[in-house]
């Protein structure tokens, strides 16, 4: 419950932040701290240096790309800000809907989009959602910027494509085209609790995308199910048929909350429900 001694810096610009992260081995970016501070309290990790991103206004913006096709969300945007954003409401309301179920208001007031993504705990809300939405992540370093697709960004448990000395600056989410619906379904430990299994889905003119969370180190695309639904029939019959075998294709963990078999089953059910709900919304 008490941190080890740590060094702390609070840069004024993104460039200063990146310089600090590059110069100091074992430096970690401190965003909302809802995960990192608690990890440090448990002494499960004790970075030598914390680089506080609080003053980096550049990372707090929500805006559209020039052609309005992409919504750009700064890494330091909090869940509360995302949920209240009129841009999000217009462009991709599923984001607001999902972050509104993260933990509780206190956590949402501090917790950031970048933090939830970069922690990449298998039970986190945003990784599977961003995979389903086809989001991309922009990473900046002293060498410049690069953009990575969500599935290439999320590499393993607590591990992403952000390397030492780099910083995630924004997440870009395609705005919703007409005839597109999004949904996220799953089972949690209590209302707004930690996910046991989840599935995020989007249904639209470009087809169906489904990402399953909590079943592997990183979100798993249900590619067989997506291909089976490529023809455009998203009736309940078709979706259930397409999902058959999804559970069996997974190797989820067993823990005190669910056995591997139960997770396989819930994954299949969640995928079906997410796709059906997304399809329903696509019509409206």
């Amino acid at each position: 419950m008490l941190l080890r001694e740590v060094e702390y810096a609070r840069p004024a610009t993104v460039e200063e932040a990146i310089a600090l992260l590059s110069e100091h081995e074992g430096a970690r970016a401190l965003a909302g701290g809802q995960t990192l501070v608690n990890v440090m309290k448990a002494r499960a990790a004790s970075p030598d240096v914390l680089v506080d991103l609080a003053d980096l206004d550049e990372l707090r913006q929500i805006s559209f790309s020039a052609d309005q096709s992409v919504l750009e969300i700064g890494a330091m945007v909090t869940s509360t800000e995302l949920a209240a954003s009129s841009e999000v409401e217009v462009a991709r309301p599923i984001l607001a809907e999902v972050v509104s179920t993260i933990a509780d208001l206190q956590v949402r007031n501090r917790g950031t989009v970048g933090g939830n993504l970069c922690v990449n705990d298998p039970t986190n809300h945003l990784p599977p959602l961003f995979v389903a939405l086809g989001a991309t992540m922009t990473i900046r370093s002293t060498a410049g910027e690069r953009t990575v697709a969500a599935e290439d960004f999320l590499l393993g448990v607590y591990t992403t494509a952000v390397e030492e000395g780099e910083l995630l600056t924004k997440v870009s989410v395609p705005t919703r085209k007409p005839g597109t619906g999004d949904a996220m379904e799953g089972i949690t430990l209590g209302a707004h609790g930690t996910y046991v299994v989840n599935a995020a889905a989007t249904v639209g003119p470009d087809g169906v995308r489904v990402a399953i969370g909590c079943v592997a180190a990183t979100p798993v695309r249900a590619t067989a199910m997506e291909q089976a639904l490529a023809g455009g029939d998203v009736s309940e019959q078709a979706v259930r048929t397409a999902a058959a075998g999804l559970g069996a294709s997974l190797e989820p963990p067993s823990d005190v909350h669910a056995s591997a078999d139960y997770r396989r089953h819930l994954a299949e059910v969640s995928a079906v429900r997410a796709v059906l709900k997304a399809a329903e919304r696509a019509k409206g």
Partner: protein
Amino acid sequence: MTAVETEAGTLQKGAAMGQSVPRKEDNRLVQGQGVFVDDVKRHGMGYLHFVRSPYAHAKIGSIDVSSALELPGVYGTLTGDEVAILTDPFFQIAAPPGGHVKDYALAVGKVRYLGEPVVAVVAETRELARDAAELVWVDYEPLAVVVDARRAGDDDAPVLHEEAGGNMSYTGVWEWGDVDAAFAEADHVVTIKELHFDRFNSTPLETDGALVEYNRGTGQWTITTNNQFPGFAAIMMGPAMRVGLDKLRIVTQDIGGGFGNKITSHPQLVTCCLLARKLNRPIQWTEWRTEFHQSMSHGNERWFHDTEVAVKADGTLLGFRSKAIDDAGAYLRYEPLGGVIWAQVAPGMYGWRNLRLEFTQMMTNKAPVSPNRGYSRMQHLWFTERIIDIVAQELGFDPVEIRKKNYVQPEQMPYETPNGCVYDSGDYPRSLDLVLELIGYDRIEERRHDAAARGKLLGFGIGSTLDSGTNNFGQSQLLNPELQFSGNNEVATVKLDIFGEVVVTLGTTPQGQGHETTASQVVADILGCSVDQVHVRAGHDSYWNSNAGFSGTYASQFAVTGLGAAKGAADLLAAEMKLLASMVFQCSPDDIELAEGFARIKGNPEAALPFMALGAIVNANNAGFPVDPPTLNCRYVYRPPFDVPDKERKFGKLTLTYAMQIHGCVLEIDPETGVYEIVDYAAVDDCGVRINPQIVEGQVMGATAHAIGAAIWETFSYDEEGNLLTPNFYDYHVPHALDMPPLKTAAIESPSPFTPLGTKGMGEGGGGGIHCICAAIQDALRAAGKPIVSDSHNPYHRVWELLQHPERSRENVEVRST
């Protein structure tokens, strides 16, 4: 005003008693001005952090504290070796061989559960103590682990305490009536192979803690703590520390929840005392949440094996026999009392007369068990409710009708159970009817159809439970005839101060039950003044001379023992005030009444002395009286009327009162996932006369929330190596605001004929929630293969398994009919 008949006479519920008077405690608590133990500071205090065992079972080799001591700001350490020299092992309640267990404040030679304190480190700041703890090196030699109490008696099971010869702490056969005859007479015998009550506790939001100061000159410790049973703590600590109990001053003020889980912190308190003396500075200790989960007060986990129930064709239950295995964890602190406490409610709420329970308690490499809200009665009442529902389902009886038929009936009250306990009063059938009315029972089938149309399985369940209160500690002799404990007591003082203020002290240690408020209500009505004129000191202080051996707040007894003591002291004071007034007015004390804050002559209200006048006379103006005036400072010890139970027959009054709760719930199961939601909930309670109805209702609500948590989410689950898989609030999910169902409550009052105020202790009736949720799940799944619910804890994955393989659960049950 209403009159209540009790054995003590007719009590008038007065201007304050019976009203939901606003709580005196609230003003300071809503402003954050409560004083909880971690709020207390002393100059120069050292912060204590425990080095705890990472193994569930291991020998301790060497311990090296030198690196820790070298860190600047570290004040000192304490190890088990020192403890073994400075103290004697804690007194054991168990008879041999269990009684040979050696339990010290720190691990000596061995660790027996993960999280057991091994070394204590004290430093200038919390952070330093934490850092220094990481520099303590302990050599462990891991040993084989036993985590299943059913295996702890096997020949090859690892033995935790060699001195005890094996892992058994207690075993005994409890039998009354003629069980064989009952089974011979039965038309049906229902057999249930295994029932399991899971391990969890109430996780009070504030963890254990203490601030201990040592006075070198007098050899006296002041222990500011949140232990909720100071009487027990002192009795355990004094002999171990080889000091008289007057050297241990225990002080509490505000306590952030107890629920029984703050009874067995005495080992840690001893560690703090030894360090306060060794280091000559105050010692501050606050338990971390993870430490609490790993090491403190898990509730008794209990299996019931080979249960048989004898039933007549008309649904009359004749009796049961079963074998209970109880898991005590690694040390016996309050155990094996759990082995007798259940007998307070041996037949549950039912009239069967032929009962047999073989009770065996085993030790395992898990956190030590100690009382948890509903302590040991909850496990047994769950057992009786489960078997009623299983019998009803298997034999085709209606769960409501079979209960009403077999409940102890109101006209039988007071009712002597087969083992000599006396249920004082109550109307169980009427209470059940109230639950059914609140929940809309007549519409259940309609709701079931409606739910089915939405693809959900709806179930309704009843959970009836007794909240036995005011222990007769003589029941401990049924476990160990050598013990010298019996009866019970609580103390209160009431005095009139020089300026007319009424000052009350209690021996209790409230953790949210509103003792300052309810005690002031009782005292105000007796003295004829307002509750605002009565000042009840917050908390407990053993130097107030207001406590005795059993003082504390536990086991549903305050409304009887604490308020009985307050009433006794107030009655004494009232008599003295009348006597003093009569001396002043030169009349008979019978001519004096106490009303509206005055002592006045009846029929002549002008001749009145305000309380201030009486207080001033006694304290500062007492010349001129031909005889000594009364002191207006009264102390009363309430002693409930008990005998020592019959040890041969295991027979006698084990508790004084029996409050009752009946819970009903409606839930809907999603058959595709096993996820379920409680959609309606009702709880009816009867705790006799309610001094403050709002406080009583608050207790019912809180207990309900605990039950819902235990039924759906809360479990202390261990892996094979003895690692606790739910060591904090992240994995051990407790209910949050959005998790609560709609709740309807109602109350009836069946006064107890045995208590001074007609009250019954209450607060632990929440087991009713666990019972009714189990019943509702089983009811819902009748449409899906009729599985048997045999576990108290039913998270979604367990419900899903019942849906997938109902036949597996049905292998647990067998019906033989003649």
